[in-house]
């Protein structure tokens, strides 16, 4: 299998080299270079349409890049389906709109991938699922359908679902921006706790600057398909270098 080779622990978890992507004529990612260490927490921000979602979706190949290299835990993403599957087995994703499966109960949502992808026995998968539901503090909702939960609860289920495959990398695409304001905190709390208690590598697209300050090792600012600036949260917020970064920060902090 493609993951058989154990990677040295100082090798980057995720490596993007000169990644380019176009939608037709539109150049959505331009020469993206990014190296993410094992266990590193990265927050990605930038104006709407700057290519943040596209970049992290390339990492589990929901989108294909057209030039450059993307390597996840030693496996380079190509058209080879086995490599794509190998990467997806190690990468969990949380979407802006939750994307829970409405016809399955919460528990079934959580056990689906362990049972079908990892071939875990059902009882074991359910025990693991309950453990993660407790971690996101909604074990009592296990047998409800997603449509019966609040937005914040649904997003916590989605986080638990991604964790159930025991991923090495978690991708978050604006996990709180579809939520009512009073539910944002409960989801961020879960994510902060996850960062504290596990060593999973996290890439999170978000404009929650409080979250970035408390969790991120590095903040990345993207604009027009490029990584314009990156720095530790303290430096990034207090001494932004680039004009576009300054403009962006002044806009979101003005809110």
């Amino acid at each position, binding site marked *: 299998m493609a993951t058989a080779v154990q990677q040295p622990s100082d090798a980057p978890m995720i490596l993007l080299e000169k990644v380019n992507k176009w939608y037709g004529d539109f150049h959505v990612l331009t020469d993206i270079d990014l190296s993410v260490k094992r266990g590193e927490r990265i927050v990605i921000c930038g104006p709407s349409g700057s290519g943040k979602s596209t970049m992290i979706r390339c990492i589990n190949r*929901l989108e294909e890049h057209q030039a450059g290299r993307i390597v996840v835990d030693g496996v380079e993403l190509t058209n080879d389906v086995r490599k794509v599957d190998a990467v997806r087995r190690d990468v969990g994703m949380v*979407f802006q709109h939750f994307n829970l499966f409405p016809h399955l109960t919460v528990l079934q949502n959580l056990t689906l991938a362990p049972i*079908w992808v990892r071939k875990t026995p059902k009882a074991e998968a359910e025990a693991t699922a309950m453990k993660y539901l407790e971690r996101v503090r909604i074990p009592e909702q296990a047998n409800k359908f997603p449509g019966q939960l609040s937005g914040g609860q649904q997003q916590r289920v989605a986080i638990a679902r991604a964790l159930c495959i025991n991923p090495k990398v978690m991708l978050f695409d604006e996990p709180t921006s579809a939520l009512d304001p009073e539910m944002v905190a409960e989801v961020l709390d879960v994510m902060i706790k996850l960062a504290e208690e596990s060593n999973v590598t996290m890439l999170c697209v978000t404009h929650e600057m409080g979250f970035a300050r408390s969790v991120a090792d590095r903040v990345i600012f993207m604009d027009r398909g490029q990584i314009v600036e990156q720095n530790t949260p303290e430096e990034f917020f207090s001494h932004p270098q680039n004009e576009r970064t300054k403009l962006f920060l002044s806009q979101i902090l003005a809110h």
Partner: protein
Amino acid sequence: MTDSTISAIMPKPITGPLIWLRANLFANPFNILMTVLVVWFLAMSLPALLDWVLLDAVFQANNVRECRAAGSGACWAFIGEKHRLILFGLYPYDEQWRPMLVVLLLIAMVGVSCLRRFWTKWLAPMWVATLMIVGVLMWGGVLGLTYVENARWGGLPLTMILAFVAIAVAFPLGVLLALGRRSNLPAIRAICTIYIELVRGVPAVSLLFMASVMLPLLLPEGMSIDKLLRAQIALIVYASAYLAEVVRGGLQSLSKGQYEAADALGLTYWQKQRLIILPQALRITIPPLVNTLITVFKDTSLVVIIGLYDLMNAAKASFVDPAWRGSSIEAYVFVSLIYFAFCFFMSKYSQSIEKRLAKSQNR
């Protein structure tokens, strides 16, 4: 809060026959006009209908002349005389308990399949076994049953076999065609699209005609397939194209997020379709799906054009007898009631599934 304050806030809904009448039948001038027209129409037609069906109908007679002399209503004596021809066609008279058993068996299996607690892995094998028993009963030639060639099959069992086999084969085929039409592989997409569009662009009658006339020409020398099988293939081809389009509608209504979530979890293409996409797409499409199934059931009657004695054609054959000439209305009413019973059941059953699904998902 006390009871009296509650009733002060929440007035009892005002009901009663007079109020109901006012709200539903005499709410405004247009409403009143419609009510009067409908009542007038019913008053004109109902008594006449009742006379024809019951009061003036004749239940005992030896031929159509006696019937007409005895009363001006329906000649149900004709049905009494000919119902076995209509129900079982030209199947040997003494063996007609076999197709009767087939009909009962199929109805029982449909009943079983509709109950949720039988939705287990045994349902499919049970159907296979049922169809094998149906084959044995209809053809015979084993277990001491005399052989009956399928050219002599007819009536209700033939209609049911044609419809059930067509639906059973066309449904999975239609699902595959619908998936194929949305495939990323251009060759598969093209084949499925062409198939669906070609079949949908042609009347069912001409498909049947082509199957009966052209299929034999396409087959290699010396090989022949019988008329029943040709009709069955034509019905499958026709039904699968329509079902494919219905299913495709359901697939399109799912959000991209469902596909992405399934992909991100690492499900394979077939796992994704089977576990995530199809269960949702088929639920949404229950009403048009059942509509198509009802159409297919009724369209089996088109096999008359290639000379099979299905229920409808057997009914036609029944009033050719000179002794009963002119009893076509009774024959058509009789078979229409049978078709209606089946289709009404399908419709009601689909409504009950929809309700239950709506409840379970609370959406």
